């Protein structure tokens, strides 16, 4: 006869089991939502780069020509306050447009198309590192740093970097957590609360994305693609025509001035 006594689980152990199960479900949900959010963010960023490279640079060129025209007109009538003001505004607009497209023009415009491996790796990273699974504030801050790096790596499609971040996080001594049913129960309950809060934040962030003008533009360009159109190229062509017209005007003004 065995001397082992089968004790019924204590209430806190039952509760811990239930809470762990709830947390697992929430964590799965969280990982998927973080993946979706990161994907949306990266797609928007990629679209903006593409847009600025295709159409934005043309607006910058147009604004530059229009600023020169306005400056030429202003230089002819130094006492005309309106003309001076218009020239200043045109120059400022040109500077703003140039600055907006400046960085984008240097970046490679490519669409964000994460591979299945990259997505799975990101899921793993989110599952292990997510800040809302932290046990205390120091842990949270550490996780946030790792997660920010991971999101950036995901957006850039850098699988090797994502893997390195995960390995670096896992090998950190801070990843070790304490024992004890009571303490563990409190930790799990706090995690559940943090995860729920983050889920609600993600929903808010996704809603905010939907209201962005950039998202609006992206949706319409994609809608056009479905209809067999290349909307960005159509836009580029339309702005290109205005550039030609502005350039003709500039030449005309310059010639008049020369003669």
């Amino acid at each position, binding site marked *: 006869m065995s001397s082992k006594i089968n004790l019924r689980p204590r209430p806190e152990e039952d509760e811990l089991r239930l809470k762990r199960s709830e947390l697992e479900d929430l964590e799965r949900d969280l990982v998927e939502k973080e993946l979706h959010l990161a994907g949306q963010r990266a797609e928007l960023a990629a679209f903006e780069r593409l*847009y600025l490279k295709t159409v*934005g640079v043309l*607006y910058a060129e147009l604004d530059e020509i229009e600023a020169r025209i306005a400056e030429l007109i202003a230089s002819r009538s130094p006492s005309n306050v309106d003309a001076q003001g218009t020239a200043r505004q045109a120059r400022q607009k040109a500077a703003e447009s140039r600055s*907006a497209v400046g960085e984008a023009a240097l970046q490679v415009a490519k669409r964000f198309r994460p591979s299945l491996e990259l997505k799975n790796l990101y899921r793993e990273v989110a599952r292990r590192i997510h800040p809302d699974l932290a046990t205390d504030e120091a842990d*949270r801050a550490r996780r946030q740093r790792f*997660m920010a790096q991971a999101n950036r790596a995901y957006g850039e499609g850098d699988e090797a970097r994502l893997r390195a971040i995960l390995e670096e996080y896992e090998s950190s001594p801070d990843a070790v957590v304490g024992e004890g049913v009571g303490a563990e129960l409190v930790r799990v309950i706090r995690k559940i609360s943090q995860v729920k809060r983050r889920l609600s*934040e993600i929903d808010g962030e996704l809603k905010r994305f939907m209201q962005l003008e*950039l998202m*609006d533009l992206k949706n319409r360009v994609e809608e056009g693609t479905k209809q067999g159109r290349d909307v960005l190229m159509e*836009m580029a062509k339309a702005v290109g025509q205005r550039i030609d017209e502005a350039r003709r005007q500039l030449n005309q003004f310059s010639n008049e001035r020369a003669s």
Partner: protein
Amino acid sequence: MTDDPEKNPRAIVPSVGDELTKPGSGLIRRGLEELASLRPERAVPLPQGARVLICDDEEAIVEYLEKLLREAGYEVRSTLNSLEAFEIARQFKPHMALLGEIMPRMDGFKLAEKLRMNDPRTKVVLTSEAETSDLEIFRARGWPFDILVCPFEKEELLEKTRAWVREAGGTPPC
């Protein structure tokens, strides 16, 4: 907003809206306007039918217009909420949108612009008590929508609606 967790603890990653639209927001807005004025190189018509969206904050007006157009054979959706109208339009893809001029939340002009930006194929019409001279100003500004001056007769509305829906590629009932 910063993406530095030290400075902004809730920012796990850069917030895309702030990051992407700060410097280039003017260019994004211009892109949307450009798009609204584009003539599609390969225009695809709206799905067949004769769909009309009505939006006005005055319930009696909406009910009257809806009944009139429905009885005339149009497929009609209506709302008293201009924000909701935009969402309906995305799904419903109306050939024509008939909007009140003054509405809370988003007035008819703003909604008209948004609807046209959303789908330039939709014919947008504002009901307005504006004088003819004001209409000339609207047109001179190149606003991409028509005005239906109030008060209007039932027959006038039906006749114009037929023309507008046809213009948008719809097939109005006889």
